[in-house]
């Protein structure tokens, strides 16, 4: 029996031992794969890269609306302005804004003022792109997981936030910093003076969006521009990598592999080949591909390619043009865009400045593309382009800006502010009948948002306008 007693004692002891060590034994739930903190430098790498990606993504959505591209298939949803659920892009916009929110907070805690300023400028930029597409969106309730069903902020208030972020960002950039930005910045590689120019340029961009509202203040736009970009050297862009191709290059490569996409709209071709404007634009071969016969033929938006075969009979984005090189840059905000903004803002204040800005903008874009100087001069001096200051109208600014902003989401903001009044610009074939003969004014809230946050999603139709669009 002694033996048995011992045995029980052992049991009790081992039992007690087990309980006391149980807590340690089970305390193994810290994720070894993902860290709980990320350095601001790593967040900057991803935020700068993803801002370029987001510019592509938004451009990819809006490019059919502005008839730069057209679908090779008839009645394609994006072409005919059907409500399409862009859950992926919505998610990508918020991914970047979420990371930027962490970046701003962490930078502010460590006195990394330059990182904070960059974070704020990128936040303004991504927020701006998102508001311009969807209007009201969650922001003040969002980003930091205060609720699972965040309420929506109005588009007017969000624009104030964009401008506030830009102002604060500029202040932070002008202060000294505890930690310097370097190669982790894929846009300017830590060149803070360029960041400040970008901040001012963006301020001009978003202030200029107010053009159709009572709050429009062109002098404020011009004031911001004065501290903006000074040449193409200042362009905010991300050049792509041998390991990661420019996403438009991927579109062109896929199309060459018969995963069809990147077909050029008839509207775009006819605007540049002399059909609509009586001048042949030398930029066309730098931007898009020709047919097997060396011609430039577009596809009518909404109509599809008809009997045209998959390859060789229509203009498409072809690999290795300016916009479609494997390592080509994605243009986020540029000197030429700024010059067009200047032309527009100055038009009623100082028409001469406006006219000069217009011409400089065209030249800057053509230079950017690498067009031969002789061709540039020939184009710019053509009377259709250089009509003289007195004959010069707002229409020319919008038309030329529409060409220069090829594939860029700002082109859709312009098209809406301009009420799509480009020459011979018609609704697509097979247009969504629910639009009642109007052009699309905003994106539908994505299915993911309707499903996950339905009670807060505003009830809007595709023809309801963003506040700046009247």
């Amino acid at each position, binding site marked *: 029996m002694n033996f*048995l007693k011992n045995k029980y004692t052992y049991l009790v002891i081992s*039992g007690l031992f*087990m309980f006391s060590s*149980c*807590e340690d*034994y*089970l*305390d*193994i*739930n810290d*994720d070894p*794969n*993902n*860290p*709980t903190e*990320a350095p601001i430098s*790593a*967040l900057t*790498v*991803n*935020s700068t*890269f*993803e801002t370029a990606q987001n510019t592509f993504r938004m451009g990819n959505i809006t490019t059919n609306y502005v008839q730069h591209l057209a679908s090779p*298939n*008839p009645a394609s*949803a994006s072409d005919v302005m059907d409500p399409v659920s862009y859950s992926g892009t*919505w*998610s990508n916009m*918020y*991914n970047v804004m*979420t*990371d930027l*929110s962490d970046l701003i907070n962490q930078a502010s805690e460590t006195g990394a003022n330059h990182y904070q300023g960059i974070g704020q400028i990128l936040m303004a930029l991504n927020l701006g792109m998102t508001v311009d597409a969807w209007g009201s*969106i*969650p922001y003040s*309730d*969002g*980003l*930091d*997981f205060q*609720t*699972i*069903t*965040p309420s929506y902020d109005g588009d007017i208030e969000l624009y104030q936030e964009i401008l506030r972020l830009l102002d604060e960002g500029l202040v932070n950039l002008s202060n000294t910093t505890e930690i310097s930005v370097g*190669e*982790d910045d*894929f846009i300017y590689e830590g060149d803070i003076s360029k960041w400040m120019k970008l901040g001012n340029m963006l301020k001009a961009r978003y202030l200029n969006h107010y053009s159709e509202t009572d709050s429009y203040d062109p002098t404020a736009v011009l004031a911001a521009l004065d501290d903006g970009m000074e040449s193409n050297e200042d362009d905010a862009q991300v050049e792509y*990598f*041998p*390991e*990661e191709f420019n996403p438009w290059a991927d579109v062109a490569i896929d199309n060459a592999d018969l995963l069809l996409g990147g077909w050029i709209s008839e509207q775009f071709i006819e605007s540049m080949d002399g059909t609509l404007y009586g001048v042949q634009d030398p930029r066309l071969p730098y931007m898009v591909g020709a047919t097997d016969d060396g011609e430039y033929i577009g596809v009518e938006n909404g109509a599809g390619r008809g*009997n045209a075969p*998959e390859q060789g009979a229509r203009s498409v984005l072809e690999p290795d043009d300016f916009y479609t090189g494997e390592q080509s840059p994605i243009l986020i905000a540029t000197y030429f865009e700024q010059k067009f903004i200047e032309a527009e803002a100055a038009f009623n204040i100082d028409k001469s400045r406006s006219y000069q800005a217009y011409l400089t903008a065209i030249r800057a874009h053509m230079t950017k593309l690498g067009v031969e100087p002789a061709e540039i001069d020939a184009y710019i001096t053509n009377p259709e382009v250089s009509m003289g200051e007195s004959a010069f109208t707002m229409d020319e600014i919008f038309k030329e800006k529409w060409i220069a902003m090829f594939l860029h989401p700002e082109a859709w903001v312009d098209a809406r502010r301009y009420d799509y009044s480009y020459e011979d610009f018609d609704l697509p074939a097979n247009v969504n009948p629910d639009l009642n003969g109007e052009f699309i004014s905003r994106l539908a809230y994505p299915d*993911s*948002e309707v*499903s*996950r*946050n*339905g*009670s807060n999603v505003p009830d809007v139709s595709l023809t309801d306008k963003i506040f700046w669009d009247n």
Partner: protein
Amino acid sequence: MRNKITIMVLLAFFQFTGMFAQQQEVTGTVTVANDGMPLPGVNVLVKGTNEGTVTDMEGKYAIEVEEDAVLVFSSLGFERQEQAVNGRSMVNVTLVENLEGLDEVVVTSFGIEQEKKSLGYSVQEINAEEITKTKQQNVVSALQGQAAGVQITNSGGAPGQSARIIIRGVNSLDPNADNQPLFVVDGVPIDNSTTESEGTPRGLTNRAADINPNDIESLNVLKGAAATALYGVRAANGAVIITTKKGKEGQVRINLNSSIGFEDINRYPKFQEVYGQGFSGEYNPDSFWPNWGPSMEEINAIDPDVRFYDIWRDAFDTGVQIDNSLSISGGNEKATFYGSLGNLSHEGIMPFSDWNRTSARLNGQVKFSEKFTFSGNLNYTISGGNRVPHDRFMERMMYWAPNHDVTDYINPDGTMKTYSNTNPLYDARFSTFEDEVNRTIGNFKFTYSPFDWLDINYLIGTDYYSESRTEITPGPLGIDGEVPLSSTGSISETSIESRDINSNFFITLSKDWTEKFGSTLRIGNDVFERNYERFDASGTDFVIPQFYDLSYTNQISNSQDKRKKRLVGLYGDLMLSYDDMLFLNITARNDWTSTLPIGNNSFFYPSVNVGWVFSEVIETPEFLNFGKIRASWAQVGKDTDPYLIGQTYTSPDVYPLNGQVGFTRFSRFGDPLLKPEETTSIEFGTDLRLFENRLGIDFTWYKSNSKDQIIPVPVSESVGFSTFVTNAGEIKNKGVEFIVRGTPVRTEDFTWDVSLNAAYNKNEVVNIREGIDEIVVGSQFGYAGSRVTMKLIEGEAYGNIFGSSYERFGADENSIFLNEGLPIVIGENGFPVRNGAQLVLGNTTPKWIGGLKNDFSYKGFDLSFLIDFRTGLEQYSQYDNFFAAFGIAEYTLARNDTRVFNGVLADGSPNTQEVWLGQGEGPDGRDYGAGFYRNTYRTVSENFVSDASFIKLRNISLGYNFQENILKVLPFNSARVSVAANNIILYTPWDGFDPESFSAGAGGNAVGFTGLGYPGVQSFFFTLNLGL
């Protein structure tokens, strides 16, 4: 004279003994009916008394009884037999084996053997023969149709492809949850996960397939929470308890089992064989479009040499599987052993797909003394094969024009031979994916029984496997004019290591307090640890053509995933029995898990079940031999996966770029207050045996509610995460199960056994946390807006498929269901109007499942067949969507018809407009563009969601056991030959390949989508068994 005297003496003697209360001694031998071996340990009872004895080692017994006594012979696993003595002094008895008899012993939790009649819940046992007869190489598939309420679905016909098992419906709202039961081998849980390939589907293996079915002695399905309460969290979806073969005392037995099988596709869709390559009815031998050209007649007018190949049959081979296994077993009083070697090699119908399994097992038991025994089991398996990317293969088949021979795929220089599209066979041959699993499953069990009322058990087991996977996509071969499979080529190497350790210590105290009242108390401690590591490295752009090594690529990236989980449990189990007719079982368990936040990681759950054999107590009609009712109530808690709590950062795959690594907030956030899930289930049932046990009926009703479900809830991305892991919902399953067994004929030479099982399950998503309208389980591509999605919505059943449909006139705008009864709205263009709104088009969970089994035996012959069925479910056919889009389906023969679509115009008036279905300019001069099938038909999901019920002849086999007279001249103790056929579709309304195949694999829950899955196969086997 002498005789006379003898008789008189005898008579007198009988008189005499009669005067002494007619007592006499009866002796005899009890033997087993089928092999004549003596049977020790048989209870011999005098009916109506407590007097009795047991047979000795030679099966002999002796007992003093009254001459009119009735002796009752009973032994576990044998049919009870009664014999009236009628004055005989020798009563020899042969007992018939009965594995499903009244005194059936079943293996429940932790390898504990219990009498089935004492259980207050339903269990179903499948024996070795029933498993091997199915000829299934995967133990999960072997269960098909055999157990009520157990749904097995083969994900496809690829060698080694996974099979999914669901018991009593899906219990989890989490789209990523494993809803399959726990697999336990010899008391120790093993891993049955399926790790599908990244990228294109290849149909990988569920890990339970590493077990050689020939090693299995019996298999028990524990269905409800009551049955699995002791296993706790890991068996929340039920458990499959596998007991492997053990050696028996006596001479050494050697068994050899050899079988060869051939297989082919069991069902084809209906194809058109009229229209060839081109588009818009124009022939073009280089066209991308395989079937939108003109008719063969017109093509042959242009080029008489063009043929229409039957590419869908040409592209496939006859599959072959060869299975050999050898086992040796034996032992003495002190020690027994069982050893086996098995090899399976399987080549699939899709060229270049194969899977092999080699396994070795050693089971042994040593009895050191009456008090102490030790046993160990060790299983080593190597398995793996080349997994052809079936989805991509079938997609390339879609694009392949039937005017070109698909089997003529390679040029003499090794490049692909093609007219322009990628040849599916070339891709299948050179885009390889090989996996190899090395796995060891083993355990030791110590039993110490110092007193007859005390058992101390310790069981420790491990399940360790390492798996390597190599996937190669060749780049260009460097030969001019080639069409490469990829412009760069790529290789990826994956290494997975998984180690489970289970430790289980328990003490059993049993005591019979009185003759009638007995008790058993078991308390124990259970510890589980899983350590999992996975490394992935991939490279693209080979430096040297055809030299496929990770080191010789231009871009290399890698990733790593490490996981560790621990679980500690304490449990108690009290069983009380009264008079062999009333049984009460109470269990309780507390678990501590590493995966929930400290503070919420300890949880307790109890269960209680009662079994009452009423036929022992109340007067029952003559024909009712046995009647029992049972009831149970049980709770089971459930934890979750490691590392779900809180917020982390991750580096997207795209990095490094320019030497920089970016980080982003990980899209998932885990509730810091996460608590365990809780499933509560109740079950009632009855077990009736009638007409001398010739008919058995087992009925079960159950209901289970799982609440506080841990779900990665998709949340508005604007909050900074896309999923929030939290306790967010409740799901309910209720249903009934029937088992009817009968022996309509039993004579000396001929026996017919029949058994039918059927189960009905109804599932409901009871609630989902406020603010969340739906949970997406999965979705599958369909052309031009015909993508379908499986979503969970509050108040609806699991498995609804949502998609686009034809607009219906007068449809209720608020209804989420498609009302197929209403007329279709026809547009102004004369074609049906598509409704892009996502409506419920069907449900992927079968309402009824079941099986019917028949066994006939006549002398040495036996014939058995197993039919199984499922009904009341719909499925999306991605195949058909492609067949429509590419003009392959038979119904696209109508492409040149003119038709007035049945339906009404927007104003409700009947449609009268005649339209042409073809492409381009119609007979009426109108331009019809890409035609009806591409413009309309393929864009409507409704066209591709249809009834996926089936009745299958799961297995039929005919065998012959050589009889004594032949065996005498052969050097064998036993010999058997058999032929069998498998998986023959008897009936299905489905038009397509085998409706059973689905694309998600056993590990996925989005089961209602076919994908371009590996087609199901039917197989024919020849088998030889020899015993030495």
